[in-house]
């Protein structure tokens, strides 16, 4: 099945254009196509066909010559992203080329990008949690940033809608701060995780430990197979068991006959028509031919990823928008957020030496937020809160054992000691001064201005991190773990890969870029529904909210189009 529509070479007018094919772009394409709109998806990189373009999906370590080791040339190509520690030869082809696509870190910031069809939906962590009114009301209650123009009741039906199609496994808990999804059966905790869960919940009333809620199928759904517990997700899943644009939304869009995907299409800017008061199209540079082409459409969805969508808007200047598309408020590029991460604790668990597990579960445990969820859990040290991910496994580092020789070799062929860890993800407040701006001094391979990123965590995030570490050590010690070590890697933003904000939603055009349906206040046929729209960052993983907010915006777009309002 080819995603190409050969008409793309000649056809330049569509009903809708979607910029980007990652998690939110895939949803936009599916919803718009299913509602009958001829839709063009502009993808910066190459086509990645589900299954056939997953070259490493079945490789064992010994199948690749260097068993995952990167050559100096590969390291150079990914010299920024390599700091994540996640790039090996198994996924190298799904990470953007940092040399061709530079960015400037005014302060340290890790920007991980996937420049190909499906984007980071192939690489993401699949943790999927609903946000709650604790999140949507927080800014208004505390007078931070601006108020979200939406509440949980606006989102709840759309969460359900996307969950039914994406397939989310998990366990219902009935917690107000972490609303339950429409769930497939949960994955299983292992014996050590069950043990630690019992000890933590027994010692700390109000704290819960559950299996992660994830976009992995635990039962077949719509022709997709269930998880086979190989944990090779980031190479692409041959069963289509986890949610990616490639396996799930783009095939659905394709099935309507309304989809055209144009690869190698670097979006340069939106084209604005002042007489109509709206955008009329999108200007691209063909990455292979350097050709300049304008595509026209009635509505435009920006789903290039948080910073890339904002980069496009900043680069779309006109007499009406001299400081970037829709930037009447001056907030475009500002209020960049990411979750803090890599702070927590780990320790050893004794007493389960005769127990093991089978299967490589692509999931761990989750401890939902328990600070500042009501009056009794109020902290005087920080606003908002954090959740933990983690898990138990048999690990250890055999190289550390002070021994060598035959008996040593026999020893390390057996499972190592049980270890258990938790690492927190804390909410980051929106700060106006945490921002991105266009940099005309540094151009990309196609001569386009790049982004300068100037963001840092501040005192509230640091206070949250201190609490994460302190609570983590306390919980693991109370759970009876040995050799408990607390840690805080004190990393800069970006490492959480939950970058949010820079084109925030809001009620007032004077202080926000987008309205309650993700429309640019001053050009209502342009929708921005990726992470850039976020008004605050919650402490839970954002991707499910991107899916729901995109489906909701697409529904509104088509309804407004039919009413001739846009």
């Amino acid at each position: 099945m080819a995603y190409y529509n050969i008409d793309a070479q000649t056809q330049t007018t569509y009903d809708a254009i979607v910029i980007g094919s990652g998690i939110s772009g895939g949803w936009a394409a599916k919803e718009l196509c299913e509602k009958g709109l001829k839709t063009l998806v502009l993808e910066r990189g190459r086509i990645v066909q589900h299954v056939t373009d997953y070259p490493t999906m079945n490789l064992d370590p010994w199948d690749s010559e260097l068993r995952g080791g990167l050559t100096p040339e590969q390291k150079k190509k990914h010299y920024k992203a390599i700091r994540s520690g996640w790039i090996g030869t198994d996924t190298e082809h799904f990470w953007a080329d940092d040399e061709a696509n530079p960015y400037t870190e005014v302060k340290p910031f890790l920007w991980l990008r996937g420049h190909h069809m499906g984007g980071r939906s192939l690489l993401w962590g699949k943790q999927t949690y609903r946000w709650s009114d604790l999140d949507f009301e927080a800014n208004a209650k505390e007078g931070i940033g601006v108020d979200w123009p939406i509440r949980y009741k606006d989102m709840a039906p759309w969460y359900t809608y996307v969950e039914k199609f994406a397939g989310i496994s998990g366990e219902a808990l009935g917690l107000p701060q972490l609303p339950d999804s429409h769930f497939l059966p949960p994955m299983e905790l292992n014996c050590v995780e069950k043990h630690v869960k019992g000890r933590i919940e027994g010692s700390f009333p109000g704290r819960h430990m559950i299996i992660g809620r994830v976009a992995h199928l635990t039962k077949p759904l719509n022709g997709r197979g269930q998880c086979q517990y190989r944990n090779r997700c980031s190479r692409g899943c041959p069963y289509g068991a986890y949610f990616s644009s490639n396996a799930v939304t783009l095939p659905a869009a394709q099935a309507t006959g309304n989809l055209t995907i144009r690869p190698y299409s670097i979006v340069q800017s939106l084209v604005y028509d002042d007489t109509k008061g709206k955008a009329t199209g999108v200007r691209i540079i063909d990455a292979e031919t350097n050709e300049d082409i304008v595509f026209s459409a009635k509505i435009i969805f920006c789903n290039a990823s948080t910073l890339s969508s904002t980069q496009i808007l900043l680069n779309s200047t006109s007499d009406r928008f001299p400081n970037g598309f829709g930037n009447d408020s001056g907030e475009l590029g500002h209020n960049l957020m990411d979750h803090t991460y890599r702070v927590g604790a780990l320790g050893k668990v004794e007493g389960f030496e005769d127990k093991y597990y089978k299967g490589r579960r692509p999931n761990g445990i989750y401890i939902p937020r328990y600070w500042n969820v009501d009056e009794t859990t109020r902290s005087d040290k920080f606003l908002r809160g954090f959740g933990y991910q983690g898990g138990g496994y048999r690990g250890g580092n055999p190289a550390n054992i002070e021994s060598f020789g035959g008996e040593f070799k026999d020893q390390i062929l057996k499972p190592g000691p049980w270890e258990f860890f938790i690492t927190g993800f804390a909410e980051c407040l929106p700060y106006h001064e945490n921002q991105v701006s266009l940099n005309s001094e540094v151009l990309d391979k196609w001569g386009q201005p790049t982004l300068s990123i100037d963001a840092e965590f501040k005192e509230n995030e640091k206070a949250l991190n201190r609490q994460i570490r302190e609570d983590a050590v306390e919980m693991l010690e109370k759970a009876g773990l040995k050799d408990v070590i607390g840690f805080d890697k004190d990393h800069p933003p970006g490492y959480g890969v939950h970058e949010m904000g820079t084109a925030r939603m809001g009620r007032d055009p004077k202080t926000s870029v987008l309205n309650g349906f993700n429309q640019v206040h001053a050009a209502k046929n342009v929708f921005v529904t990726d992470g850039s729209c976020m008004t605050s960052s919650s402490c839970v993983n954002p991707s499910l909210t991107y899916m729901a907010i995109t489906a909701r915006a697409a529904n509104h777009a088509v309804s407004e189009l039919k009413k001739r309002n846009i």
Partner: protein
Amino acid sequence: MDRRSAIRNTGLLAGASVTLPTFLSLLQSCKRETRLDWEPEFFTRDEAKTISTLVDMILPRTETPGALDVKVDIFIDKVIARTYEEQDQEAMRKAIADFNEDCLKNHGSVFNDLNESEKIKVLEAAEKSSGKFNPGIWGITIGNQEPVGFYRSMKAVAIWAYFTSREIGEGVLSYDPIPGNYNGCLPVKDVGNKWSL
């Protein structure tokens, strides 16, 4: 602890009274031959012999294949040749030279020319003096990792190369490329050796 001082400590400890581990008798029963029947990509032939001897002593053949049986030495040479940056390659060369220099100083010969019991003393001392790896989760090293020294680094690389060889990964460790389901609690004896993947 830097790599250099780690190896110097090796010399200090070698003079102390150290109880020989029980497997010494096993090792003595078969004389170790330093063979080099392959052409190194990165190492000199002498360096390659040092590495071959080291990985053979760390992971010798028993009832299961040893490091040399699964070509751990040849793979390490290839990995250094093709994935190390130039300065890391130079550091590796210097580490081997330092290691041999310390053997020469403390035992009168470079590593490969020492007799079996002297080689064991060198490794036992290195086990004590070479630093440890900090624990890690999700590829993140916890805390500030001090340099671990040549011996520990080489041991770690050897173990990785051993576990990720086809012979060990498929034939010795428990290999299940498509588990199909997750069982969070079963007796270790139902699995046997640790999981390969």
